[in-house]
């Protein structure tokens, strides 16, 4: 049972480049989330999705875009990378918005120089 899988694990980007962080889950969860983790700041929500075809902004969406064409996949797109986007990115999923815990991937460490 793979759970939530994120690729790549690490990436270095130059300022202005673009990339897509991949996230896929095999648990048939409707709810998916993208968080970024910065030291001493906890995790901040970037975007979330409550089902295929539905996405919405979280607390820190600027500079990012997402899509949700299938239940399994929730890619995060950075169009013009900036140093402020240097962070660790986590994808998570949940079967519902009740009291089930979120399932997290192992993260993507991104450095923008």
């Amino acid at each position, binding site marked *: 049972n793979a759970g939530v899988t994120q690729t790549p694990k690490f990436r270095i980007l130059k300022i202005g480049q673009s990339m897509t962080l991949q996230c896929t889950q095999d648990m048939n969860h409707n709810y998916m989330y993208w968080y970024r983790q910065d030291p*001493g700041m906890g995790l901040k*929500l970037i975007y979330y999705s409550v089902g295929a075809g539905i996405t919405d902004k979280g607390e820190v969406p600027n500079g990012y875009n997402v899509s949700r064409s299938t239940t399994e996949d929730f890619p995060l797109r950075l169009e013009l990378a900036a140093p402020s986007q240097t962070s660790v990115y986590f994808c998570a999923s949940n079967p519902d918005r009740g*009291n089930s815990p*979120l399932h997290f991937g192992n993260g993507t460490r991104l450095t923008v120089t």
Partner: protein
Amino acid sequence: AQSVAQPEDQVNVAEGNPLTVKCTYSVSGNPYLFWYVQYPNRGLQFLLKYITGDNLVKGSYGFEAEFNKSQTSFHLKKPSALVSDSALYFCAVREYDQGGKLIFGQGTELSVKP
């Protein structure tokens, strides 16, 4: 808006001693509270949750948490710490307005020394 706070950036404990990692919350309505642990270069792993009912919640790896409504606290505890418990711990509260997202505290680094 819901929020949680972890007042300690770091907690140091000797192996075999009890440990406490503190968390306070601010919510409107009944809180749904969670504790997660993060080991280096890994994602967050669920430890335990409080939904309703008993104020002492038992979770994974021998951890438990005490919910205190009057003090708006949800402290994580373990009777006897292990070196392998050294990790980053996050308290979180569920927010129902944004797809059931979790709102996280800033994290507490737990260091258990032999």
